[in-house]
C-alpha cells in the first residue's frame, strides 16, 4: 500500500518533468549528431584522395588557376584554421562557392531544397492518408481469424509493393502512365499534374509498409482490456475503433514517421533523377559526378540536418502526445 501510494505520487508528479528530461536528452543528442555531421562534411573534402580542386577542374586546367582556387577555398591553411573558419561561416549561412559555377552554394541549395520538399512533404502526408485507413480497415475486417483470404492477399500485396524500390516504381509509372496512356508528363516540373507520379512513386512503398504496421498495432489494441471496457459500454463500433483503439495504435506508428520522412527525403534523390526534377537530389548526384565538392558538402549537410531534425521532432512530439510518456528510457 505504502509502495503503491509512492508510485501514484510519482505518476502524478512526474509526467511533465519526465517529458522535459526526455526532450532535453533528445536535444542534446541532436546537437551532438549535428556536430558529427558538420565535422564529417568538413573532413569529406580533406579525405578526398588527391587534390580536390585538380580533380574538379580536370587534368588540363592551368596550374595557376588550380592554385588560385585552392587559395580561394583556403585549402592551403592549417587544418584547424580551416575547420574554425568552416564553423564560423556555417553560422553566417555561408556554405562557400561552387568550384565549377562560382555561385554561392547556399543559394543553390535553398532553391533546390524547395523542389525536394515539394515532393517529400506531400508524399509523407499521402503515405499516412493511405496507410492509416487501410491498416485500420484491414485490422477490423480480418480480426480474430476472420476473412483469411483478404488477410493473405493484403499481406502479400504489401510485401510485393514494399519490395519494389522507388526508382523502379518511378520507371514503371513513367512507362505505363506517361508513355503508354500519355495522361501525365513523364518528366520535369510543370503544373500540378507533374507532381502526381513522383509523389506516388515516393509513397507507394512506405504506405505498404506502414499499413501493415498500423494493422498489426491495431490488432493488438483491439484485443486490449480497455477496448473490451469500451464494448461493455455498448458504444458504436465506429467510436470503439476510431476513438478508443486508433489513437493507441498510431502512437507506435508515429514514432516511425521521423525515420520514414528522413528515408523519404533520401528517396527523392532517386526519384528526382528519373523525373528530371529540379531538386536537391539531382544536384547532389550531378555534383558528385562532376566533383564539385563544396556543393556536395553543402547538400550532405542539409540532407543530414533534415533527417536529424525530423527524427528529434517526431520523438519529442510523440512523447508529448502520449500521456503515458512511455518513451522515457529509450
Amino acid at each position, binding site marked *: 500500500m505504502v509502495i503503491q501510494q509512492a508510485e501514484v505520487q510519482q505518476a502524478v508528479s512526474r509526467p511533465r518533468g519526465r517529458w522535459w528530461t526526455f526532450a532535453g536528452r533528445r536535444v542534446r543528442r541532436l546537437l551532438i549528431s549535428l556536430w558529427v555531421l558538420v565535422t564529417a562534411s568538413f573532413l569529406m573534402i580533406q579525405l578526398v584522395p588527391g587534390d580536390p580542386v585538380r580533380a574538379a577542374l580536370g587534368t588540363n586546367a592551368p596550374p595557376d588557376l588550380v592554385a588560385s582556387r585552392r587559395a580561394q577555398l583556403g585549402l592551403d591553411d592549417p587544418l584547424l584554421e580551416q575547420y574554425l573558419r568552416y564553423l564560423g561561416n556555417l553560422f553566417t549561412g555561408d556554405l562557400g562557392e561552387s568550384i565549377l559555377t562560382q555561385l554561392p552554394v547556399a543559394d543553390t541549395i535553398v532553391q533546390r531544397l524547395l523542389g525536394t520538399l515539394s515532393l517529400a512533404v506531400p508524399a509523407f502526408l499521402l503515405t499516412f492518408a493511405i496507410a492509416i485507413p487501410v491498416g485500420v480497415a484491414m485490422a477490423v475486417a480480418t480480426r480474430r481469424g476472420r476473412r483469411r483470404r483478404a488477410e493473405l492477399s493484403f499481406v502479400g500485396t504489401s510485401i510485393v509493393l514494399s519490395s519494389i524500390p522507388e526508382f523502379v516504381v518511378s520507371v514503371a509509372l513513367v512507362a505505363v502512365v506517361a508513355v503508354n496512356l500519355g495522361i501525365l508528363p513523364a518528366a520535369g516540373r510543370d503544373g500540378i499534374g507533374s507532381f502526381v507520379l513522383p509523389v506516388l512513386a515516393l509513397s507507394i512503398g512506405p504506405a505498404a509498409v506502414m499499413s501493415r504496421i498500423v494493422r498489426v498495432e491495431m490488432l493488438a489494441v483491439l484485443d486490449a482490456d480497455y477496448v473490451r471496457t469500451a464494448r461493455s*459500454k455498448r458504444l458504436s463500433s465506429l467510436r470503439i475503433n476510431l476513438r478508443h483503439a486508433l489513437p*493507441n495504435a498510431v502512437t507506435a506508428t508515429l514514432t516511425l514517421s521521423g525515420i520514414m520522412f528522413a528515408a523519404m527525403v533520401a528517396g527523392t534523390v532517386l526519384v528526382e533523377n528519373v523525373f528530371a526534377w529540379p531538386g536537391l537530389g539531382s544536384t547532389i548526384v550531378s555534383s558528385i559526378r562532376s566533383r564539385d565538392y563544396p556543393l556536395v558538402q553543402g547538400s550532405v549537410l542539409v540532407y543530414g540536418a533534415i533527417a536529424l531534425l525530423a527524427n528529434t521532432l517526431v520523438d519529442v512530439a510523440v512523447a508529448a502526445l502520449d500521456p503515458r510518456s512511455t518513451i522515457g528510457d529509450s
Partner: protein
Amino acid sequence: MRRHWPQVLRTPVGIVGIALLTILLLLAVLAPLLWGDRATATDTGDILSGPSSQHWAGTDDLGRDIFFRTLVATRLSIVLTLLATALGVGLGLLLGLAPLLLPRRLGRIMVAFLNVLLGFPSLLMVLFLAVILGVSTSSAVLAIGVAIASPFARLVHTLGAGIAERDYVAAARISGVNPVRVIVRHVLPNVAEPLVVNATVTASSVLLAFGGLSFLGIGVQPPQYDWGRLMQDGLGSIYTNPLAALLPGIAFVVTGLAFNLTGEAAAGTFGAKSRSRSRWTSPAAPVTVRPSGSGDEEHARVADVLDVRDLHVSFPGPEGPISPVRGVSLTLRTGEAVGVVGESGSGKSMTALAVAQLLEEPGRVTAERLTFCETDLQAGARSDHDALLGTSLAVVFQDPMSSLNPVMRIGSQLVEAARRHQGLTRQEASDRAVDRLRAVHLADPERRARQHPHEFSGGMRQRTMIAMGLMGTPRLIVADEPTTALDMTVQRQVLDLLQETRRDHGTAILLISHDVSVVSSVCDRVLVMYAGRIVEDLPSADLRTKARHPYTRALIGAVPDMATDLDAPLTTIPGQPVDPRNVPDGCAYAARCPLATERCRQDDPVLVADAIGSVACWHADVALDVRIEEEAR
C-alpha cells in the same frame, strides 16, 4: 537454427522465396557462361530497336540484346549484393559486440556513436562515402557495406546486451571465462536466429541500394553492367522501348521479393514460438449437452434481474466445438449478490462474459433462456440491446491497470456511454461524471476527471470502473475478479463499494472470483463451478458448514483462515482441472474426488435441489457425513 529451416520450406511463402532464390543463384552462375557472348555482341545495324522475335526486349544504343544483358547482369548484381552484405554484417557484428567487450565507459560511447549514425538515412551515408572513396564499383561495395553496418550493429548490440544480462552469462563472466569466449559460446548462439533473418532482409535492401547507386551513375562503371546500370541506360529510350528500362526493374523486384519472402517466412517460423496464441486448438471430445435444471422453485418472480437457463459457450476447434461452459443456469433478483467460485478454467469468466454479451467471435453463446430486465437478449441483433445494456448493466474487469483507455481522460471515458444511451448533453454528462467519481469516494473528483488513467492507482481505477457503471442506473454489476490484482486493504475498499452500491441502488451483483473468502463476505448465494457446470449452489452463510460437493469442500479447505495452522503447508486440491477440450464421460470431478466410485465415472450427476441448496454429486449425503466425521476426529 538448422532445425527451423525445413519449417521455412513448409510455408507457401517460404517455398516461393527459396525457389526464387535458387533460380537466381543458378542464373548468376550459368547466365554469363551460356549467354555472355550474345549479351556483348554489338549490331550497329539494329540499335535502339523495340522488342522483336530476334531480340525479345529490344536492343540498346550499340545494338546489344537487352534481354540477355539483363540475364547476364544477374551475376554481377547478386555478387555485389552478397559482397556488400557480408561486409556490412561482419562489420556490424564487430561494432555491435565490441561494446560488450570494451570497458564500460568506452562501450557506452560506442553505443552513443552508433545511435548518432543511425540518425542518418543509409542512402546519405552511401553518397557521403562514395564521395570520399571515389566513384567506382569497389568503393560502392565499401560504401554500402559501411552504411548498413550501423543498423545491423545496433541490432546485434540490443540482442546481445539482452543475453549478456542473463544470469548464466553473468555467471560465466564472473567465474573468469574469457569475455571473447563468453560471446562466442553464450551470446552469439542465442542471437543467431534473428540475425540470420535480419541479414536476409538486409541483403534485399543492399540489392536495391546498389541498384540505386548504379542507376545514378555512381555505382558500377561501364563497361561493367548490373541491373541498375541497365535501367539507367534504358530510361533514355523509354518512349521508344519501355521494356529496356522495365526488364531490369522486374529483375530487381523478383530478386527483392526472393530475399524478402525468405526473410518473412523465416521470421514467421522463428517467431512462431512466441506468436502462437493457442486457444482451443486441440481435438475436442464430443460434448453431450444435457440441461442441468435447477428445478428448485418456479421461475415466476417478475423481479428477476437476470434469468439464465442452460447457457452454453463454445469455440470452434479443429475437431469439433469446444465448450468451456456447458449448461449453466442462474437467476439474480434485484439487489441480490451471487458469487461464482471455481479454479481457473472452470468457465466462470466465460459465463460472466456471456451473460454480459461481451463474448467475441468465434465464441458462440447459446441458451434456453437469457433474459436481462425482462428483455430477451437472444432476440434481435446484439446492437438492439445497446441502450438497455449500456445503462443497466455494468462490468468490472480483473485488471484495473489495463481496463481504462490510457490515452483518454477519465472524464471522457465516463461520459461517453451516458451521452450515447441517455442523451445527456456534454455539460450534464460531465457534471454527472464528477458526481459519480465523488460517489465512489475519489477525493477531488473535478481534478481527477481531467486526469489520465496512469495518474491513478489500481484501487482508484477499479473504483472508476464502478463509477463508470454508475453513470446509468445499473440493475446488475458483473464483476469478474475485481479485487484479484489489488492488495488486501484496497480489496476491502472495493468490495465495500460494491456492497454500498447494492444497498443504495438495489443493484444485483454477479461476483466472479477464485477466492472463496471474497465471495462469501459479499454474496448471499454462492455458485460453485467446475468444468463448465455449476456443481453446487448454496447460501454463503452455509458454505463452511453445509457444503456437500467434495469440490466445494476442497475449495473451502484451500482457504486459510484464522484457525489455520500456520506451520502446516497450505491445502491444495490434488490433481489437475479438467481440460475443456477433453471432458470425461461421468462426473467431471471424479478423477480428483476422494469419494469417486464406478458410478461417478460413468454417469454424470445432475444438479438436484433440496432444502439447503442444489448439488450435483452422487455422494452428496456421504460427503456431509465424512465431513462431520473428520471434524469429530
